[in-house]
């Protein structure tokens, strides 16, 4: 009996040993599977991480480019929004340079001479747009001495002259040489002030250069000095001309207009050329006139208050 028990114990011991060995073995296999799985998962994760890192780096690149694009756009918009100021600045720079160059020319230096094209008595619906087209085609700025014409048809023309950058001068509202303009100092000055206000509403420009209708000598000598004094107090300067197209009287032809200018210019360092935009002959002569003057080494400038040619 004792032997059977001892045999049974021995048998159980062997079984337990065998079972534990088997268990350890099984655990080892299980663990090996887990390790295999984990190694695979680790590999997959590393791969995913690499993909994500690559993705992130791509995004960073695109991000950088987009930010660059954004800042360029912002600068562009800022520039566009600041265009008004930029125009003012470049205009100021232009007129500063114009004054510097005019001074140089007056000192006998400078490779080119200056022509101020001055166009009086407009606007006219018939020809003024064509005058403007020609000036635009040649990329030239001129000076328009305008009078007061409340006709609504002319409103866009007043505006176009101003928007094109041409200088706008005051040629009085009425231009009524023979109908009382020069009757008294007040009649003339009031007409100038009326035109200043009129042009302000039509073009937004406040004039400071006046051209006497018929020229400054048309004002009677008795009034002339007083008129000039009053113009000074109003901060106006005035200008006549030293070359005329001769297009305001008689029977001008394109040839006569051209000859008058080319003969009158006579190699002047600074030419102030008088013409009228009611003249079809001048309109026809204008392109040749510009080309001839260019050939004779003239550049074209719009008049400006600080110019030595403006009498103050």
């Amino acid at each position, binding site marked *: 009996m004792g032997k059977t028990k001892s045999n049974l114990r021995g048998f159980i011991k062997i079984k337990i040993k065998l079972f534990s060995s088997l268990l*350890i073995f099984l655990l*080892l296999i299980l663990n*090996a599977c887990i390790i295999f799985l984990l190694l695979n998962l680790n590999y997959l994760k590393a791969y995913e991480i690499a993909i994500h890192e690559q993705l992130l780096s791509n995004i960073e690149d695109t991000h950088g480019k987009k930010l660059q694009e954004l800042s360029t*756009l912002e600068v562009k918009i800022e520039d566009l929004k600041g265009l008004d100021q930029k125009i003012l600045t470049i205009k100021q720079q232009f007129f500063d*340079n114009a004054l510097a160059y005019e001074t140089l020319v007056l000192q006998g230096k400078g490779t*080119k001479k200056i022509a101020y094209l001055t166009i009086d008595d407009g606007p006219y619906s018939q020809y003024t747009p064509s005058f403007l087209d020609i000036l635009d085609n040649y990329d030239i700025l001129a000076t328009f001495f305008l009078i007061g014409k409340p006709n609504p048809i002319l409103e866009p023309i007043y505006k176009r002259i101003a928007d094109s*950058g041409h200088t706008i001068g005051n040629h009085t509202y009425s231009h009524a040489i023979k109908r009382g303009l020069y009757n008294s100092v007040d009649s003339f000055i009031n007409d100038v002030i009326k035109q200043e206000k009129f042009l302000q509403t039509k073009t937004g420009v406040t004039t400071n250069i006046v051209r006497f209708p018929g020229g400054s000598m048309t004002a009677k000598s008795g009034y002339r000095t007083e008129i000039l004094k009053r113009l000074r107090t109003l901060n106006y300067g005035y200008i006549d001309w030293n070359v005329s197209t001769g297009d305001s009287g008689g029977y001008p032809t394109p040839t006569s207009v051209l000859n008058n200018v080319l003969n009158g210019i006579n190699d002047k360092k600074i030419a102030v050329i008088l013409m009228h935009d009611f003249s079809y002959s001048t309109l026809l002569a204008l392109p040749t006139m510009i080309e001839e003057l260019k050939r004779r080494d003239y550049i074209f400038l719009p008049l400006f208050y600080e110019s030595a040619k403006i009498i103050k």
Partner: protein
Amino acid sequence: MKKIIKYWLFLVLGGSIIYSLFNYISYYEKQQKLTTLTTEVTERYEQLNDIAETILKLELEAKEINKEKEKQIEEYQKWVRQNQILEDLLK
């Protein structure tokens, strides 16, 4: 002899468990990193989308302003050209 084998088996089992633990930790860390990366990618994508949207908006705005200021742009360029003539003469 058997004991020695068993002892070794235990040792190997212990070692392999440690190794699997080590692998699990590594896996866990990678998973964490991946989660962070995924969040970052999503965030960056969103940011990128926001920028792209802003760019689109600004492009439209620029286009509109451009159209609005077409005349002024021309005017500005005209003054630049005119000024350049004088600048060249003054050199």
